[in-house]
């Protein structure tokens, strides 16, 4: 340490206040920028609070006041919020939709717990989760009335589509990524052509084909339910993108690891499951979370093929004479729903990154 004994750090000055001053007002230009930005921020917050809380009307009974006040008319949420959350699901059966939605969300949360990670456990969990969801939503047994998938809607439909796409798409993606890395040329090329073809088609086209074109070209017994077809098609689309993310992860692992594992006599299954995939997933966690978040938001596209997801039921909620003027309130409500889910997903991604970093090296 050359000269280290004599030079001490300068004395700390007034802690946080000093830091702020140094960062925000270090010269006159910074000062002006800080003041302007601060004023803009304050005025936005004040206006927002004013609109959303102070001048707002809250209950459906007071809807007549909405035209007079300058603030938000939350009466529309009071009156139409249930429609946004449940879509066309029969009104007296909403408890089933609520329960089904909770079950999927709980299944999602459970499968996020490291204790349940394992192919068998996760499969059992998701089969149980989806099974309960479908029984609750569709009914037909245990004295539950039948509710066909055309009547499913709102949040539980959005969550169901998202979960279905993720759960079907992820294994498919792993399979495709491994296939594309295969040393057999046929498998390698087939996987490559499949991925590139699916990626070059717009999601809308794929979903439209699954919902509308399939009935023309596939015999009736093989058609299945429209919702099922759409989830599978969406999953294929997701898998094509996710497969490339995983492949990037696999390629980031030095090939020496795989060779060493083979030299130790580990079989292919063990090399993939114990050495390659865990590292590939960890290395690509940010982009995987990115893709998952995008997929969650893209579920709203199913409205174009007649499904009543949250965005479609939101547009139904404002599409009635007396509520047409309050679309901003409904959009804010829907934005909050998406925010809760997407923010939750992002935070979970951040947690996973911290967790895997701890175990690293």
């Amino acid at each position, binding site marked *: 340490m050359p000269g280290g004994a004599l030079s001490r750090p300068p004395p700390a000055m007034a802690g946080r206040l000093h830091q702020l001053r140094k960062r925000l007002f270090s010269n006159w230009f910074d000062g002006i920028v800080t003041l302007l930005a601060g004023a803009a921020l304050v005025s936005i917050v004040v206006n927002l609070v004013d609109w959303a809380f102070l001048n707002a009307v809250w209950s459906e009974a007071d809807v007549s006041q909405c*035209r007079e006040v300058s603030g938000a008319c939350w009466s529309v949420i009071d*009156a*139409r919020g*249930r*429609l946004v959350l*449940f*879509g*066309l*699901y*029969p*009104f007296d059966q909403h408890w089933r939709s609520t329960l089904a939605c909770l079950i999927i969300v709980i299944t999602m949360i459970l499968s996020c717990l490291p204790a349940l990670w394992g192919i068998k456990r996760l499969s059992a969990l998701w089969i149980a989760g989806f099974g309960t969801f479908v029984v609750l939503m569709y009914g037909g047994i245990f004295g539950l009335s039948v509710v*066909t998938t*055309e009547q499913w*809607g709102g949040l539980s439909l959005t969550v169901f589509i998202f979960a279905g796409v993720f759960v079907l798409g992820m294994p498919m993606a792993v399979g495709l990524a491994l296939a594309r890395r295969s040393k057999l040329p046929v498998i390698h090329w087939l996987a490559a052509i499949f991925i590139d073809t699916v990626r070059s088609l717009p999601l809308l086209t794929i979903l*439209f084909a699954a*919902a*509308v*074109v399939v*009935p*023309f*070209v596939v*015999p*009736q017994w093989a*058609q299945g339910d*429209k919702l099922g077809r759409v989830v599978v098609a969406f999953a294929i689309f997701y898998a094509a993108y996710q497969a490339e993310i995983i492949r990037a992860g696999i390629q980031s692992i030095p090939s020496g690891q795989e060779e060493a594992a083979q030299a130790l006599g580990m079989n292919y299954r063990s090399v993939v499951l114990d050495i390659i995939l865990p590292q590939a997933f960890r290395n690509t966690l940010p982009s995987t979370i990115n893709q998952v978040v995008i997929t969650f938001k893209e579920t709203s596209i199913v*409205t*174009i*093929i*007649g*499904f*009543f997801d949250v965005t*479609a*039921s939101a*547009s*139904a*909620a*404002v*599409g*009635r*004479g*007396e509520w*047409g*003027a309050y*679309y901003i309130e409904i959009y804010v409500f829907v934005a909050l729903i998406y925010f809760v889910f997407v923010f939750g997903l992002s935070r979970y991604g951040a947690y996973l990154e911290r967790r895997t970093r701890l175990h690293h090296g």
Partner: protein
Amino acid sequence: MSFSRSLGLCTKKDAAWIAESSKPKEEVIMIRSTTKTLTAAAIAACLALPASAADPGPTITQIQERGSLLCTSHNGSYLGFAEVDDQGKWSGFDIEMCKALATAILGDPEALQLIPVSWAQRFPALQSGDIDVIIKVTGWTMSRDTDLGLQYSRPYFIGPTNILVRSDLGATSPEDLEGGVFCINAGTSIERIVADYMGARGISYEALNFEKAEELRAALYAGRCDALAGFGPFLAATRFNAPDPEGFTILDAVLALEPEGIAAREGDDGFIDVINWMMSALLMAEENGITQANVDEIRANPPSASVERLLGASPGVGERLGLSDDWAYTMIKAVGNYGEIYDRTVGENSVYKLPRGKNHLWSNGGLLYSLVLD
């Protein structure tokens, strides 16, 4: 599959249907050459037999076997025509027509499955059999009628293009809007309609185009334009949602008309017959003052022979369509006459207060009339 049945009970309608279903869109995979041979055989067999009066055609048979009508609703809401109430139940003009048709065929307005479809999806959904019929403010255009293989009923709604103006301008006709600013939905046929109408009358105007309905409305409310041109029901909803609804007026002038029909698959004449007579019965009920409330009374003391037949008090109205004789009575009892449906959903008893205009009976200055029931 209508195949074996048709061979047993043949009409010309069936022959047409079979010819239609040999196209690849039919849901059951068949070997094409066999199909063609069988089709030819079926047509030959059918032509040899006299048409059976009671056979209602494949769509109605299918609806009756299923016990419900598959009708269109919307992926969201379409103001006044297909909208959802707080409890997730459909209402609106198109939905009422679906109910009327379900009642006519099955005797029960609840024997109905409303399938949400988007605008783009409605035609393929009809062809693939996801729905039986399109009742979705669908204009009767030549390309749809021919290229898309649809068959239209008589128009059930005459869609006018109107102008909504700020009342304080004092305008009563488009001529008064000389030099004014029009808000117009960009990229729609409204743009052309306004240009044609104003051009033909030599009225100059300035157009302000917007993509979205919300933007159009906001611009009008904020006073950025003097007038808004568009589909009548949309204008009525725009006026209703204005901060000051009295501040806006819909002018009487009609810039253009679009006849909205009920569309079914080509070649099922029996089904189109039922739809046309359903419409006609709703209008005839209005012409004769038969309402949901007094239909029982009038059925007991019919004022004329045709009303007696319409309400099934004397036979004839059902059998010839392959329906029950009291179908019209049950239908009017369930949904009311045409005027009642109109007033309840888009007219004076609704929030939109859309004037009847061209959708009035001919005797009240409109374009609607019933067919002759003999």
